[in-house]
Structure formats: C-alpha cells, structure tokens
C-alpha cells in the first residue's frame, strides 16, 4: 500500500514538471508585454515626475510666477536650488529725488524691483524629486515637468537655469511638449 502511494506520489511529482511546461508554453503563444521603447512609449507618463520647472505667470506665461522668496531653496533637502534675485534697477535722477523726499517724510519707499528671479539654478543630478519645494512655494510657481527622457553626456547637462528653460519653451511654443517619442497607447 505504501509502495503504491509512493509510486503515485512520484508520478504526480513528475507531472508537476509538465504543468510548468504548460504554463510557459501558454505564455509562449500569448502576445508580448514589452513596449518596444524607441518606437513606442508607455502611456502612463503624465503622472511621472520629471525634473522641476517653473510655472509661467497668469498674464505672461513665459515669465515665471516665482517671487524669489527662496522658500524652495530653504526647504530643499539636497540643496539643489539656488534662486538669484534681481538687483534693483538703478534709479533715475527723478526717482532718486522722489526717494529722498519720501525718506525725508518718513515714508517707506515702494520697491519697484520685479519680483521674478533673474536666474533659478537647479541641479537635477542632486534632486531627489521629493516635492518639498513645491509644497512650500507660497505662490505655486513650481511643478514637475513631464520630461522623463532627460539624458546627458556629463553632469553639467543636468544643471540648468529654469528661467532660461521657461523662456526657451517660448521659442517652440506651438509644441509645448519637449521632444519625446510620441506616447502611443499600449496595453501595458
């Protein structure tokens, strides 16, 4: 009786090998799951975080909404953001006079310096894409781009000025998306 059981078990054990072959055989005939990258791209890129980019203003979409407060740089865990504020423009003689008058009157002079940053230096190679800067931006001037195809030959390729990048996007404004393979819908 035991011997029969043993023999039966051996046969069923060996049968498990056939079951395995059946699975691989089945998948051999089924369609592939791979997306052939250079010609096709996966369809779920719109939720993926690319590098940071500045959001354009309400009126002029090519001038950043940023007010150069530096909260992002302060919050950043990896110190990858440097905001360079604009220097106050040299006042004209009349303005200087007015300023002196105002001072004499004890009024606080109104700062006419544009708020938007001169340069917004960003080091993508240091960034860990945590989003802390976005959350701490008081005016919502930062967001993640959809550009997930960033590639470069040297570390310097990943250090860029976001103000410049925003302006550059003006140059090829019609196709607002950066050059990336057309995202075709695939079933993956």
């Amino acid at each position, binding site marked *: 009786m035991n011997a029969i059981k043993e023999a039966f078990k051996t046969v069923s054990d060996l049968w498990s090998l056939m079951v*395995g*072959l059946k*699975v691989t055989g089945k998948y051999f005939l089924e369609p*592939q*799951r791979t997306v052939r990258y250079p010609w096709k791209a996966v369809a779920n890129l719109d939720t993926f975080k690319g590098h940071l980019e500045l959001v354009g203003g309400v009126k002029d979409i090519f001038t950043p909404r940023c007010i150069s407060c530096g909260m992002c740089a302060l919050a950043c865990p990896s110190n990858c953001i440097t905001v360079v504020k604009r220097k106050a423009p040299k006042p004209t003689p009349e303005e200087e006079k007015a300023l002196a008058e105002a001072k004499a009157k004890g009024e606080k002079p109104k700062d006419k310096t544009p708020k938007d940053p001169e340069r917004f230096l960003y080091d993508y190679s240091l960034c860990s894409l945590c989003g802390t800067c976005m959350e701490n931006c008081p005016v919502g001037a930062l967001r993640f781009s959809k550009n997930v195809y960033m590639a470069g030959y040297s570390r310097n390729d990943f250090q860029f000025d976001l103000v410049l990048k925003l302006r550059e996007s003006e140059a090829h404004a019609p196709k607002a998306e950066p050059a990336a393979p057309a995202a075709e819908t695939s079933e993956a």
Partner: protein
Amino acid sequence: MPAELIRILIGLVAVAVSVGLIGLVMVWVERKVAGHVQRRPGPYEVGPYGLLQPLADALKLVGKQLFMPDNADPILFWLAPVLSFLPVLLLFLPLPLGDGLFTLDVNLGLLLILAFSGLAVLSLLLGGWASNNKYGLLGAARAVAQSVAYEIPLLLSVLAVAFVSGSLDLATVVKEQGTWPWNWNIMTQPLAFLIYIVSALGETNRAPFDLPEAESELTAGFHTEYSGMGFGLFFLAEYANMVVVCSVATVLFLGGWHGPVLPGPVWFVLKVSLLMLLLVFFRWTYPRVRFDQLLNINWKWLMPLAVANLMLTAFFVKLAQYAVVKM
C-alpha cells in the same frame, strides 16, 4: 580510396560550416524562445526578426580582448576551449541525415559518437583547472562528477536500442525502423528514451542540469575566466553538443529520416529541431537541481532503471530469437 577521402573532406568542411551555422541559429532560437516565453520580443533590432543578432554577438566575441588571469596555465588555458569544440565536429561524421546521406560510413558509428562525446568533459576540467580560479575549480569538479555519472545511463539506454536493432551502425538502426511513429523505437523503448533525454541534459550541461556553470552559485563555473572567443568556443560547443544528442535521439528513437510525404533529410532536421525546442523550453521553465540531487537522480533512479530496462530488452530479444529459431 581517394573517393572516400574526398567525401570525408567535403563532409568535414560541410560539418564545420553547418555546426557554426547551427550554433548561430540555435543562439537566435534560444533567445527568441526565451523572449517569447517571458513575454518579451527577444532580439529584434538587428536584421529581420533579429536574425542577425547572433552574428553581431559572434563578431563582438571575436573582437574582444583575450584575457588570461595571472598564474593561469597558459597552454592548458587556451587548449581547453579548442578541445571542447574539436571532438564535437567529429561527432557529426557518422550521423545519417538521410538514406545514404552521411560523411563517414563506419559500422560502429554509435560507438564513435559515445567515445568522442566522452572527451568533452576533459576540456571542461582543463578549463576550470587552468584558469586558477576557485569558482572555475568547483565548476570543473562538478563537471567531471556529473559527466562521468551521466555517461553510464546514457550508454545503457543506447545499448538497449542497439540490442533491439542488433547493430551499432546508425544507418542500420534507422533502417530497422519504419515510416510511421508506431514503427519507431520509441514505441518499444519508451523508458530508454526518457532515460536518454535526461542523461543527455546532464551530459550537455543544459538547464536544469547546468551545474558546472550554475551562475547563481559559481558565477560562471568553469568558464568564469574566459572572454572573447575562448568563451565563444565553449558556447558553440554547448550548442553543437545539443545538436548531436538530439540527432542521436532522433536516429535511435524517432526513426531518423523516416516520415511520410516529405523527403528524409527534412524529416530528420524537423525532428531534431523539435527535440531542441523541448530542451530550450526545459531551460526556461525549470529551476536548477542541487548537485547532490543531481547525482542522486542518476545513481538512485536512472542507473537502476536503465539496467532493468537493458536486462528486460535483452531477455525479450533473446526470447524473440529463440522463437524465430524454433519456428
């Protein structure tokens, strides 16, 4: 005699060329099948359906620097890959692809094949030993133990077929079988066929018995230190060996060139390809067995079964002869 010599020469060249070609095609098939089993395309960039991919691989291998580790034995180190590949060429000589389509007419063809295939293990041992690497040494030790062990059930199962056919000549073995599957030796010797396939996996170091090169344990086993064509030759020899064992299985068990409608050589190639496909599927389906289990399978299962099968065969063959004589 000159005619025979010319035939051998032509055969050798043809074999060398076709072994190279088969190797390339098999690499492609292996990768393509692996790809499709794993639901990815496999090679598809180089040439139509990636057909030129193995060629590109081969070119890359040829172009690579030949590297030898310090303190390795230079002669043995480079002898090993050559030695692994050369005997395989000889194995193709007595194989009958069709009726009368073979290179060398020896009436002990089976013996020749078994003898030369035994040489392969020597190259693995040399390669592993000479590369002065601990993984290589462990791989070589495994290769020897495995090949020596699996040769015995292989021999015994082949012998059973030879008993039935009454000949060691491969052409005769095929001629004894008929056109239809029920006339083939696999019907009379199913157990021998199973034992043969399992031992053949062990002999050719194919997964799930690829222990001498088990990459998760021994990184690459005996060919850890080989680069470029040194590795390429081992690689080619592995595929050539696969072709040989599948061809022998076709000749012995699956009726060789026999088959309806299509011409003989086509049937032969078809059967060999199907067997190879099966081996490829094995590799991409099963986990690797452990070394002691590998030897246990051999000594505790295959050996007794093969011996029993052989004795039964001998008994029935003798019985049949006796009956014929009586009549």
